[in-house]
């Protein structure tokens, strides 16, 4: 039972609010450091690609953005599911905060992919390509989720209804991905996650990994900060927020 008590303490809004404030600077500093290392390493020290020359360097933004667009959806769906099943309000706040971040990463991945595709593939946008299309549908899923939240005034109801949508979407993502895959294939295969190790030179790989982890830490920091704001808003009528905003002795 000790673990449950611990989890309950973690999920209590005031405790989370204070804890997140302590974690955020660490995440932000680590993220920025990795980002700077990755950006300098990727833009100046990594050699040009044997086929694509300097144009391949957009990979240092494109791949982390695409990765985070998916990670954010996973975070959102799992948090929504936990919130729905175990009725944890904090979990719903996490899901609600992850959606706009995920949508922006998806947008960034689409734009950088398009800019990369123009010189390399010879097209800004290729409807026949599975990854492009399924990433676009992912953006639509985020839109639907955010629109449903915005349409329901009652927060508790919005939490539960949008949680169902997030979970249905999570079941559908592999199907959507496969459906567009079936229809064609132009995008290259996986570079990093392969049975025989990454198919990329180490001087190019390290900055890329740094960028992916840097983006992830920055996402973590942004997410925690958003959740803090969300929690503060949701608990605006509670005692602890009142005390926080107007410390004892400071009467109106």
């Amino acid at each position, binding site marked *: 039972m000790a673990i449950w008590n611990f989890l309950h303490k973690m999920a209590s809004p005031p405790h989370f609010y204070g804890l997140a404030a302590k974690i955020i600077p660490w995440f932000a500093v680590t993220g920025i450091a990795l980002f700077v290392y990755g950006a300098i390493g990727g833009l100046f020290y990594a050699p040009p690609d044997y086929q694509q020359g300097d144009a391949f360097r957009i990979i240092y933004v494109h791949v982390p953005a695409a990765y985070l667009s998916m990670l954010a959806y996973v975070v959102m769906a799992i948090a929504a599911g936990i919130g729905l099943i175990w009725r944890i309000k904090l979990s719903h706040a996490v899901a609600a905060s992850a959606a706009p971040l995920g949508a922006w990463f998806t947008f960034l991945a689409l734009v950088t992919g398009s800019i990369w595709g123009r010189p390399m593939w010879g097209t800004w946008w290729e409807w026949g390509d599975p990854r492009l299309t399924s990433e676009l*549908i992912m953006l*639509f*899923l985020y*839109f*639907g989720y955010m*629109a*449903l939240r915005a*349409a*329901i005034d009652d927060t508790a*109801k919005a939490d*539960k*209804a949008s949680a*169902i*949508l997030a*979970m*249905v*979407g999570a*079941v*559908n993502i592999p*199907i*959507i991905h*496969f*459906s*567009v895959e*079936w*229809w064609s294939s132009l995008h290259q295969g996986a570079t990093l996650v392969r049975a025989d190790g990454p198919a990329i030179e180490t001087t190019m790989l390290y900055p890329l990994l740094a960028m992916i982890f840097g983006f992830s830490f920055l996402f973590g920091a942004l997410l925690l900060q958003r959740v803090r704001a969300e929690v503060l808003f949701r608990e605006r009528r509670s005692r602890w927020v009142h005390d926080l905003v107007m410390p004892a002795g400071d009467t109106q």
Partner: protein
Amino acid sequence: MTVYEEQFPGLWQGFAAVVKRDLTLAWKRPGDVLNPLFFFAMVSALFPLAVGPSQEQLQLSGPGVVWVAALLAALLSLNSLFLSDFEDGSLDQLILSPQPLPMLALAKALAHWLVAGLPLVLVSPMIAVSFQMPGQTVEVMLITLTFGTISLSMLGSIGAALTVGLHRGTALLSLLILPLAMPVLIFGARTVSLAAANDPVAAGIYFLAAYCILTLTLAPFATATALRISSE
């Protein structure tokens, strides 16, 4: 326990009662059946009017047009799936009844398919002919549309349940359901196009059947949960 069983009708009776009730309501209000059909026919007619009567272009775009029009027509009728029940309070009766709610949700979605989906399937050959699609495509189109419209009714029932009490229901419903319905559109339209070109179509039909069974299996539970939340 026998008392319990005598007092409440079985699973199947509850299911059948809901289907029968919705079919009767549709019979009394034929507009519910006809409006999506007219919509389907008109949207299909828009494309030749906009693109021009070139036979080659019509044949090429036919499968896609039929699928997009069917998707939109099915979507149009989804908004009313739970709306009248919500307004007159019978939705609360469904939720409070001792029957398992997922079973009743399945009945509602299947009744919707019978009223709004099946007629689309039956009318589609006429549209195929007007697009001069080759004869062998009609059979494939009927099969894929059948699986596809069932999937759409099931997915749509989730969306309709999520948006039932909301004011801006229709536009929101489309926003929620369209991304989920895209695999159906992709598999369906692509398979009909393949049939038109005499290419193998079995893979697409298997996928649509799989998706249809999956939505039939899982959607009722999601719909039931969504109904409980919306009627809180």
